[in-house]
């Protein structure tokens, strides 16, 4: 019999409120957490909007030493991992370290700390031969972001297979898919898996400016992220993390753990087309969706909610609308689809795991989060995007998709945990 994997713990840090409870309240209220960038003066930049977290690491229980050593994204991951373990009702002594894995996704790693330290060692960008004398000792941990997995492994006491997954904006989905594989194949029984990114820094804002990927709606930052709307003009950069406890289902059942959802299927494909561009036909994403459904042993018509990538760029929202129609056929028109990026922005690699957390909570609470700011749908985006207001609806199987630079297209199927074992 094949091993099944369930989500038994959720830890979240998202713009608009820390912790999973605040996150879910924001999503179901339909409020937005995008605002004018406050971390630095954004006035020289084309896009001056982002979804920032009001996160104070000392208040979240990190020691001064940990705060100095860890990039903000690593801090997010550790705090989320602790929340997830506690939510799963697992004390550190209840994990068997050699059978516990850590898989952390991140698109851009410690880029914010790297930029901060670069400015120091280059004397504000003046020195090409930067100075080693001003480098902080933990700079190596910023250079190679596998340090994020190290920090989480230390925090939870894991000694099983441990890695960082970095597939751009699908990192969060792919990390959870990777951890699911580890449990299914028997390399681990429990995995602490999720993703984190804290990219709101001048270099990241500048690089998305350069390709006009982010929204320039600077005069109305609260309504800047407008997926599927005719007036959308780019994504709003975000930050955050979600870390889940994944367990082999039988083991979770034996210890009486609460399961939010089963990770029933996962697949990824590449478009092999362009590092940032998408073809409008959604072909490769549709293929990933079909493969994920196959793995879940479900049919497209079994899907009763789609958590979209919905970044709010012109090309993405068309691309994925086409992918849903291509993979689900006429059922796409009957399936509610929403984008939580309308509320919490696009936190690059982290968002995929935050969206999986949202899907698990949607199954649990029988509520679908809405797409905020959607007043005038693009005629090319003609599905039911749950505009503006959350919707009460019981779901048995939901689809979560992601699309990223590098051409990555990923799809995950989550199922109500009490569904008949296939």
């Amino acid at each position, binding site marked *: 019999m094949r091993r099944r994997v369930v989500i038994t713990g959720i830890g979240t840090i998202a713009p608009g409120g820390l912790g999973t409870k605040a996150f879910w309240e924001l999503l179901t209220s339909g409020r937005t957490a995008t605002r004018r960038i406050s971390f630095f003066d954004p006035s020289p930049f084309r896009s001056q909007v982002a979804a920032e977290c009001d996160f104070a690491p000392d208040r979240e229980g990190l020691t001064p030493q940990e705060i100095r050593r860890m990039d903000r994204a690593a801090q997010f991951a550790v705090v989320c991992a602790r929340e997830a373990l506690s939510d799963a009702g697992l004390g550190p002594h209840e994990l068997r370290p050699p059978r516990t894995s850590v898989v952390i996704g991140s698109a851009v790693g410690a880029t914010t700390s790297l930029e901060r330290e670069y400015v120091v060692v280059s004397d504000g960008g003046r020195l090409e031969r930067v100075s080693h004398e001003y480098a902080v000792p933990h700079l190596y941990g910023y250079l190679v972001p596998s340090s994020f997995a190290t920090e989480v492994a230390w925090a939870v006491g894991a*000694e099983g297979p441990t890695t960082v997954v970095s597939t751009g904006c699908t990192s969060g989905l792919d990390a959870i898919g990777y951890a699911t594989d580890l449990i299914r194949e028997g390399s681990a029984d429990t995995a602490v898996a999720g993703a984190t990114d804290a990219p709101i820094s001048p270099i990241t804002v500048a690089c998305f400016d350069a390709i006009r990927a982010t929204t320039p709606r600077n005069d109305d930052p609260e309504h800047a992220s407008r997926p599927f709307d005719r007036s959308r003009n780019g994504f709003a950069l975000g930050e955050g993390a979600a870390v889940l406890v994944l367990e082999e289902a039988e083991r979770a059942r034996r210890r009486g753990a609460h399961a939010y959802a089963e990770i029933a299927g996962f697949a990824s494909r590449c478009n092999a087309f362009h590092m940032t561009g998408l073809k409008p036909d959604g072909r490769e994403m549709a293929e990933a969706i079909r493969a994920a459904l196959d793995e879940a042993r479900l049919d497209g018509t079994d899907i009763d909610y789609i958590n979209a990538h919905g970044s709010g760029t012109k090309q993405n929202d068309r691309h994925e609308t086409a992918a849903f129609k291509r993979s689900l056929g006429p059922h796409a028109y009957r399936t509610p689809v929403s984008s939580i990026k309308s509320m919490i922005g696009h936190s690059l690699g982290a968002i995929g795991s935050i969206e999986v957390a949202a899907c698990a909570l949607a199954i649990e609470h029988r509520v679908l989060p809405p797409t905020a700011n959607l007043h005038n749908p693009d005629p090319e985006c003609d599905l039911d995007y749950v505009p503006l207001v959350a919707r009460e609806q019981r779901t048995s199987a939901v689809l979560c998709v992601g699309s990223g630079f590098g051409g990555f297209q990923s799809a995950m199927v989550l199922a109500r945990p009490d569904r008949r074992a296939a």
Partner: protein
Amino acid sequence: MNRAVITGLGVAAPNGLGVDAYWSATLAGVSGIGRITRFDPSGYPAVLAGEVPGFDPAAHLGPRLLPQTDHMTRLALVASDAALADAAVVPQRLHEYAMGVVTASSSGGFEFGQRELEKLWSGGPQQVSAYQSYAWFYAVNTGQISIRHGMRGPSGVVVADQAGGLEAVAHARRRIRRNTRLVLTGGVDGSICPWGWVAQLAGGRLSGRDDPGTAYLPFDARACGHVPGEGGAILVAEDLDCARERGARQVYAEIAGYASTFDPAPATGRGPALRRAVQLALADAGLRPADIDVVFADAAGVPALDRSEADAISAVFGPGAVPVTAPKTMTGRLYSGGAPLDLAAAALSIRDGAIPPTVNVGQLAPGIEIDLVRGAPRRVPVAAALVLARGYGGFNAAMVLRALS
């Protein structure tokens, strides 16, 4: 279960660009370590690195790719072309979704990133390249390789410092077991630019010696850190039945076993977990310690780490009971590219019945009881090889390659 085998090798190493150049230099004990030429290293406390010689990107890559790629991505693209050519695979003849790309990365396109940071901070946001959004990030090599060869199947990118190079190949095997026919996998890395150098120096493990002959001496009583390098290897991993069906001209080895473990947190006071990784990898391959003919060591070059690796090897195999080698003494440590290059060397050892030497190492440090192959290559049949890799922060990985019988 599908069996994953290696049918093609693409190498970009400091002591040879291309498999033949690399392997003949490696058997001859020719090192590629020297004073850094990619920037002026004077004034830094380490000045040596392994740089890939004679690399002319414009000879391999079109004018569209050059401005959007970091040096290490160019090396990776050339290595991926070479791997496919070595395997005699024509990607257009395989189904697009039956081919994937899984690479490891450590620091992404750091040199590209330094240039753009400099433009931003000295000139302003309008100076930043439109390519910065993807030229530096960790997923760039997988993305660019998939585009170049039209590979649309399951793909991935892992970051686990030096251990990531094995983790990527293990993930490729996982995909093949689940019916992807062919995966280009491995890693090519390098951040030999001033900003990358300063970040590497901060790790505290670089050798400060300026003599290439004595700077990187793993297991030696004089060990004082390592020399880093750039490059690595891209491998064609393929389902054995598919390889036979298309009449593959060679099968170097089967990816027979793999395991990874993570060291206990420092606060626990418990020792490292490399030994457990070795045992699990052997069990995964269904082999006993006596079946292993050579161990390619991680070879940190840091005394305490050398000792713990030697202890793990001795504990599993018995003191001095298995030949151990570290050809990376000729290339430097290549971050995510190092272990894939060792896999290539292991595959070639199996093919040729020759274990390449560890160069420069003299007297082993007290307490290190391994049979380290030094001097001339050792000519012995190699049916199974174990490759070890450890990543900064606690990552351990062990992979077994086995000849097809």
